């Protein structure tokens, strides 16, 4: 390699950055084995998820159907179980969690992003401590408290806990997004006589849709996918959310895989669809969403 290459390389950077990246990292030579590796890894990784879909489309137990793919299991599952109720419960809990989480975290994130003093430092520290506490420690006292005020086996109870569990990460995510909005925009609004609240709502919040969406997706995944809180607090079939419903149903019908997997498909479809449609807010907008607990 001669020094003459360097200036050439630099002009390429200036004109076509995308092509430049490809040159550095791959070259045509490397492309195909990389593609193959990714293809094989993705295929292996997706086996468990593909199995769920595949099994759910098999003919039901005792069915006379000879079609390779049927929706019998789905028909059976909706007629024989309360999966409709569980789904409605899950949806209600999740939607309300998302709404409250965004409404509470949006202004709180603004404080974290813009204010600078000791109180905010303390607030920031509280958020971090809360995030590292094990859920199982909080569940026991909350169970005792909720039992006393009638929130055990109650969807309101689990919703309250979900909102609390989303808080730290939701606030960080909103604050991280506000950091990308120049403060000059608000200062201009203040000059024009806008209050802090007015500047926040009319200037900052208006430009924060990607941040809000990202936070909402995070809260959605947390509330929709949670098992531990639901299994502790929800005690009767009509109050089950999908995770407890599926697990209970699985315990009772462990051999009827078609039925079990039909419930599983119903459960994983909303987050997968949501994520497929809105994933650009994750890939572009960031990773904050990945702070969801698993």
């Amino acid at each position: 390699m001669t020094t003459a290459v360097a200036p050439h390389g630099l002009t390429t950077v200036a004109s076509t950055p995308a092509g430049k990246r490809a040159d550095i990292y791959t070259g045509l030579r490397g492309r195909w084995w990389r593609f193959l590796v990714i293809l094989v890894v993705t295929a292996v990784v997706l086996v468990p998820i593909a199995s769920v879909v595949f099994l759910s489309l098999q003919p039901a137990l005792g069915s006379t159907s000879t079609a390779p793919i049927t929706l019998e299991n789905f028909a059976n599952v909706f007629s024989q179980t309360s999966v409709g109720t569980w789904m409605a419960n899950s949806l209600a809990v999740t939607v309300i969690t998302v709404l409250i989480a965004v409404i509470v975290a949006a202004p709180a994130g603004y404080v974290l992003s813009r204010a600078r003093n000791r109180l905010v430092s303390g607030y920031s520290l509280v958020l971090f401590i809360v995030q590292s506490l094990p859920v199982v420690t909080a569940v026991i006292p909350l169970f005792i408290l909720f039992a006393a005020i009638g929130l055990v086996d109650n969807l309101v109870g689990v919703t309250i806990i979900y909102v609390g569990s989303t808080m730290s990460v939701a606030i960080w995510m909103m604050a991280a997004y506000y950091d990308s909005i120049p403060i000059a925009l608000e200062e201009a609004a203040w000059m024009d006589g806008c209050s802090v609240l007015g500047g926040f709502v009319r200037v900052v919040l208006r430009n924060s849709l990607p941040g809000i969406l990202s936070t909402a997706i995070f809260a959605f995944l947390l509330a929709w996918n949670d098992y531990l809180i639901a299994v502790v607090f929800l005690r009767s079939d009509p109050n089950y959310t999908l995770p407890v419903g599926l697990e209970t149903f699985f315990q009772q019908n462990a051999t009827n895989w078609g039925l079990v997997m039909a419930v599983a498909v119903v459960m994983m479809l909303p987050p997968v669809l949501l994520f497929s449609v809105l994933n650009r807010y994750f890939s572009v907008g960031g990773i904050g969403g990945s702070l969801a607990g698993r």
Partner: protein
Amino acid sequence: MSTNSVVNRLQRAKAGVGVGGSGSASPRKKGRFSARTWTLIAFALPSLILLLLINLYPVIYAGIQSVRNGDLIDAGNFVGFANYAKILSDPAFWAAAQFTVIFTVTGVFGSWLIGLALALLLRTRIPGGGVFKVLLLLPWVVPVVVSATSWNWLVATPQSPLPMLAQALGLGNVLFLANPVLAQVTVCVFKVWISFPFMMMMMSSALASVDVNVYEAAKVDGASSWQSFSHITMPLIARTTYVSWILMTIFCVNDFPTIFLLTGGGPVNSTTSLVVLAYRTVFQNFQTGPGVAIAFVMTLVLVVISVALYRQIRKVNIE
């Protein structure tokens, strides 16, 4: 939004400096100060009330519970550190602690290695790269109850697909969830499968912030690709790496459904982690005091590990 700002915030939170440095005065105009301060307090107040009620109150209450002999209904009497003495002298506790360490170490580094490798591959231009990115995130998006059910179907009984495959390959009768050691391995692999997309996202976003021109310069200077990776890429993504380790450590130590839904803690308690042990002690054996004490000991260790890793971050905080 970027990883870095979340990352910075985490670090500052730990360092106790918040987002605003070391408590210097607000740069805002003095005339606005009061109204502005009140507005900001009002902004933060709802979240603070929620955090205190849902997150901090229970932990304080749990601290009280851990030194009493009550149950879920009765508060019981003060028993000092009897609960702690009881659990610390119980071999089941130490077995659970040991498995928690195995689970966490494999979970963190397994998912990190795979996530980093995939992030490096996906950084290059690959046909259909965007589709692969979404597909590879699915294990993290799909509810763990669903994936645990599916893994059960794949491995649980001798008639499941994977044991049948092992049989066909001449490996004999492989009992993935019935053999204690194999069950531990299976649970750890399951955790890595669930968690690598998180690491992939963290690492992708860190890699995206690395200036590609640096590689060209290194190449001109005669650096090999391994040298480029170890001397350029790694130092530049070191901070995000440490933060992702810390977060994943917290996720793994606190993880309940991954283990509980796949094995229930068995066979013969081989996959019982501290969280599963705490859950069983409280909700299956109805011993609140010892159960909460387990959770507290666990929290303490978690905080120590987090602090140790954070110190490390501040050392590599160059950028």
